[in-house]
């Protein structure tokens, strides 16, 4: 068990890291928003003031202890605003890492059991010797963190040769070969997570590919995947009590207005932040980008059967409504907004979910290299917030667009779901959130302009 102890600690470490992102009390901000309002005039901006005071203090202290100057190749934004960088780069990642790390640990245990039986008495000694490998890793791959990571990413290229065809397609996808425009960042991040598995496979006997199917079975047993990852959604069409039964299924493509076909997204996500983005290209063709191909490939057989996890564009046949949120992005406003936020140097945070950010990238919106903090933490916060709000009730999953419209109508009369202002100014900033924590984490987000006509009475927003 101790042979690959670092993976356990890796998991634990990230688990611990996840905690500070939850519901930290902060004093009220004094930030004023007229300039931002002016910038976002006409698109109903929602301003989210940075609200991470305690996190900031801790991290800033840690940062300062390292000195005021970093290596010359550090990005300027990192030096100026490490908090946003940290949040942006990691807060969304943590859940995925924890989740994947749990998976890896189970994989590892199964692997070890299998190998232990097959390598007889020699195994223990080699296990110790393998542990010694890490000294070389430390020596050669950690002189700079960048060297370490770069070596790691470079090394991923060697994986197909080492493990054969099993991961070959995956690695190709991680190298962003599908031309859909997704960022290197996401690709590499997924590659990184996947690489951990591959390290495990390699170091514990990559040549024993025949074991893979056994491992898969073992992992499923260990993780009890069906229970954990396949929450059965209530089928509104089969539920006789559901008032929405009469609403027919419709082709989502037909529901998208021509003038927003190039900037409308359907983002499907789950509690761990794994997501796929279905969107329309400038010609109105439906496309899909899988943001978590590794996760979907291994852990969600249903999605895999439907083609998710291949990280390739899909036909419109795969587009379907339900369990999604939809985001409208006005690209021309986004650049101004980012510039404005940059000027604030930490007093204002541009936030978007990884999914939203990546969906923007997937449709060609240039968000550059500027730090874009995630609101995954906020995502959790608002679900929790919904617990204490008497106005909210459970939101059915698997809703079609017309069903969503009905739900949103109900919201207007304050009877059904809660509406949050979330930090993503550029995304119209309204989220219709699930009512209880038990609700599957399927949020319905609609652009304000789609469902709330200008001038209509708008319900009061719930502050963070």
């Amino acid at each position, binding site marked *: 068990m*101790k*042979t690959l*102890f*670092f993976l356990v*600690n*890796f998991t634990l*470490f990230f688990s*611990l890291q996840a905690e500070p992102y939850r519901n930290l009390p902060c004093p009220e901000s004094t930030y004023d928003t007229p300039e931002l309002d002016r910038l976002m005039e006409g698109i109903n901006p929602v301003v989210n003031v940075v609200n991470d005071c305690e996190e900031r203090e801790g991290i800033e202290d*840690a940062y300062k202890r390292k000195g005021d100057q970093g290596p010359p*190749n*550090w*990005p300027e934004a*990192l030096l100026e605003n490490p908090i946003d*960088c*940290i949040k*942006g*780069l*990691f807060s969304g990642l943590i859940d995925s890492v924890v989740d994947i790390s749990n998976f890896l640990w189970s994989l590892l245990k199964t692997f070890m059991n299998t190998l232990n039986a097959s390598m007889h*008495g*020699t195994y*223990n*000694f*080699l*296990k*110790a*010797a*393998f*542990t*010694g*490998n*890490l*000294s*070389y*890793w*430390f*020596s*050669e791959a*950690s002189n*700079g*963190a*960048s060297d*370490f*990571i*770069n*070596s*790691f990413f470079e*090394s*991923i290229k*060697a994986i197909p040769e*080492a493990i054969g065809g099993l991961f070959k397609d995956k690695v190709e996808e991680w190298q962003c070969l599908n031309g859909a425009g997704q960022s*290197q*960042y996401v690709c*590499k*991040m997924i590659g990184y997570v996947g*690489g951990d598995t591959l*390290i495990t496979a*390699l*170091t514990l006997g*990559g040549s024993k590919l025949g074991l893979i199917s056994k491992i898969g079975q073992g992992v499923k047993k260990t993780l009890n995947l069906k229970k954990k990852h396949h929450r059965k959604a209530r089928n509104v069409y089969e539920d006789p009590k559901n008032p929405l039964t009469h609403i027919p299924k419709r082709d989502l493509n037909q529901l998208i207005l021509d003038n927003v076909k190039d900037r409308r997204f359907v983002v499907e996500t789950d509690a761990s932040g794994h997501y796929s983005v279905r969107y329309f290209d400038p010609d109105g063709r439906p496309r899909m980008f899988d943001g978590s191909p590794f996760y979907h490939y291994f852990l969600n057989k249903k999605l895999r059967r439907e083609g998710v996890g291949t990280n390739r564009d899909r036909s419109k046949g795969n587009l379907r409504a339900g369990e999604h949120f939809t985001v409208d992005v006005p690209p021309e406003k986004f650049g101004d907004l980012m510039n404005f936020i940059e000027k604030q140097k930490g007093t204002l945070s541009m936030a978007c979910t990884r999914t939203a950010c990546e969906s923007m990238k997937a449709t060609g919106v240039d968000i550059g290299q500027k*730090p874009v903090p995630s609101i995954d933490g906020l995502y959790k916060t608002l679900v929790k917030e919904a617990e204490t709000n008497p106005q909210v009730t459970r939101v059915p999953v698997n809703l079609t667009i017309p069903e969503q419209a009905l739900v949103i109508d109900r919201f207007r009369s304050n009877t059904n779901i809660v509406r949050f202002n979330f930090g993503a100014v550029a995304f119209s900033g309204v989220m219709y959130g699930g009512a209880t924590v038990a609700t599957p984490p399927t949020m319905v987000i609609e652009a304000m302009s789609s469902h709330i006509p200008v001038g209509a009475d708008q319900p009061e927003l719930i502050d963070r």
Partner: protein
Amino acid sequence: MRGFIFITFLLICQSTALFAKEMPRDILRDIPTELSNNWKEKAVFFGVNKAWDYLPQEHTLLTYLARDEAFNYKTFSEEKYFEGLTKAREIGLKLAGIKNWKILKKKLIKISDKKILIKLSGTYLVKRGFVKFTEWQLFTGEEYHQVALIENKDAYSPLSKKQLKNIFHSLLGVSP
């Protein structure tokens, strides 16, 4: 991306404290004071308990690690071990950009029925060129200890052989 790299580094460093709690005994082992000139202990993350840079010379690094590891000499096959070791290193180090890890000299010293000391030296290849390594492994029956010295192949040796042996012995906790 660079931000990610930096943060990863920070987080890994931060995690060191966490790992420290899990580390087996002997974490206090150190280079003997009389030989510690120019060796600077550096921060470590998973994989090693302690590490020292040799300041006058780049890429000269000493690492020490200790693990619980049951060992029974009766079931130990020297031939299989070195064969497996080379293979484990080759495969496992590939991901760190290390190639051709090769043992050039090896020696197994049986200290007792439960305890063996393995001395290895050899070379491997990384981007900057060939690297020499000297690695000692100590199986005590319940624990595994390892000291490794990494040097560029053309580097001058920081200490005499005798001094290096003293350091190795000291870190492993065995008598010369």
